[in-house]
């Protein structure tokens, strides 16, 4: 085993190289802004009847087809997201067409509308991956999702998803003050449901979450979460990890498979509901790089995205004097706002502040 300093140094070279190459292999498609839930923490402010209509699939397809000449389409995963993608009646058809063009695809879902029939249809359409949100036991989940039936629906979805030998899937849990103390028993619940992979997030203060302080973890909670993940990873009964959302200092390789690396604009792009071309959909819309209705997607990918590929500008605000900047590179793109004058929050700083 190489010392941490050397592996971190190698990772920096790796990150720089990946940034220079910027090979696209992860593409979000925000196919709808409609949603069947109204979660307290939603970053996209979706509603049942979104003002922006769903994007016609043909528009998305035409925009991304040139990717087939630039890359091996099989190496590109299209993550269909929303809103709730299951609200699109043509979802299986969209997915199958993508797969026939060689792209891999999957969905991010709250599971509310996921049933045996749609499960079968999506598998037939070549779906290969699903991420399901499950935020703790019934009371906590239903509270966050603001719906009394959301837990039972999501668990039914979970049973279907885990029954498939084909799917790559994971459960994601947003951790907040109300569910953090039930993580241990919830882990046992997931294991009993044969879940193999589990990702935990904190909730960023964006969208509806910005106004709710109980969704933010305290410093003590953050340490609890990191220790919990590190322990769950060590006992290897379920592949548990902290999401890619932040550099976490000494916890780095204890809570994830690899070092923090925000790949927005480096390997990750998106086509948003109005045709905007960006990276992850949760990034401030000020960072939009083009629009499929005006620009050639591949051109934008190759020639723009400078703001995400050269993050020197992030040396401002609390990041300006940060000794960890060389490893962290200014944190998560989704935590920067249009003023670009400082990151909204730094989990590493919070963790360090709580050190005794």
């Amino acid at each position: 085993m190489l010392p941490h300093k050397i592996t971190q140094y190698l990772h920096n070279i790796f990150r720089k190289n990946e940034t220079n190459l910027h090979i696209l292999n992860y593409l979000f498609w925000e196919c709808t802004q409609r949603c069947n839930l109204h979660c307290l923490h939603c970053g996209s402010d979706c509603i049942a009847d979104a003002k922006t209509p769903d994007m016609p699939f043909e528009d998305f397809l035409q925009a991304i087809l040139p990717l087939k000449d630039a890359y091996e389409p099989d190496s590109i995963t299209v993550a269909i997201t929303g809103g709730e993608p299951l609200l699109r009646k043509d979802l299986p058809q969209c997915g199958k067409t993508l797969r026939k063009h060689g792209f891999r695809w999957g969905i991010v879902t709250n599971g509310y509308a996921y049933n045996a029939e749609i499960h079968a249809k999506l598998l037939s359409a070549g779906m290969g991956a699903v991420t399901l949100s499950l935020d703790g036991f019934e009371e906590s989940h239903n509270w966050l999702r603001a719906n009394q039936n959301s837990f039972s629906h999501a668990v039914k979805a979970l049973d279907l998803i885990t029954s498939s030998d084909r799917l790559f899937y994971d459960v994601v849990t947003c951790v907040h003050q109300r569910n953090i103390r039930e993580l241990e028993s919830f882990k046992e619940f997931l294991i009993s449901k044969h879940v193999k992979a589990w990702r935990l997030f904190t909730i960023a203060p964006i969208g509806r979450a910005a106004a709710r302080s109980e969704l933010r973890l305290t410093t003590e909670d953050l340490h609890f979460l990191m220790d919990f993940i590190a322990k769950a990873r060590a006992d290897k009964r379920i592949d548990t990890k902290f999401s890619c959302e932040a550099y976490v200092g000494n916890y780095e390789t204890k809570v994830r498979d690899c070092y923090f690396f925000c790949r927005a604009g480096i390997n990750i792009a998106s086509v948003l509901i109005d045709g905007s071309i960006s990276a992850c959909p949760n990034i401030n819309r000020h960072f939009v790089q083009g629009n499929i209705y005006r620009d050639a997607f591949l051109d934008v990918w190759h020639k723009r995205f400078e703001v995400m590929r050269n993050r020197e500008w992030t040396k401002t605000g609390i990041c300006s004097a940060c000794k960890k900047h060389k490893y962290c590179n200014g944190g998560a793109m989704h935590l920067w706002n249009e003023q670009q004058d400082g990151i909204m929050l730094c989990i590493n700083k919070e963790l360090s502040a709580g050190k005794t």
Partner: protein
Amino acid sequence: MEKFITKKRKILRNIFRGLSLTSIAFVFQACYGIERDFGNDILVEGVVTTRGNKPIEGIKVSYDNSLQYELTDSEGKYSFYTYKAELNMKFEDIDSIQNGLFLPQEMLVHITANRVKLNVKLDAAP
């Protein structure tokens, strides 16, 4: 020159991929995204026609008694993805006399490629 630099970077990338300590870094997923899909799947497609080669619309094509099924389109075409190497396929006329009346057909299919063409002719019901 640009090409040369890119080639060098790609070589470096492969070196990193070869090093077990960072190869895992290639299997990344975005925080709010799905896992990458590296699974094998097989596209099964074909056309359902009459003995006289006329396409039949609305035939239910299912396999392994599962809920997974497709209906043939106006050109008699169907297609679906599976990961199974052996399929018990069933072709059934479920729309009664609309589009004609045909006898069902069942067959066991062994799949050896990742794209399979399976055209089927159905007998008209007596």
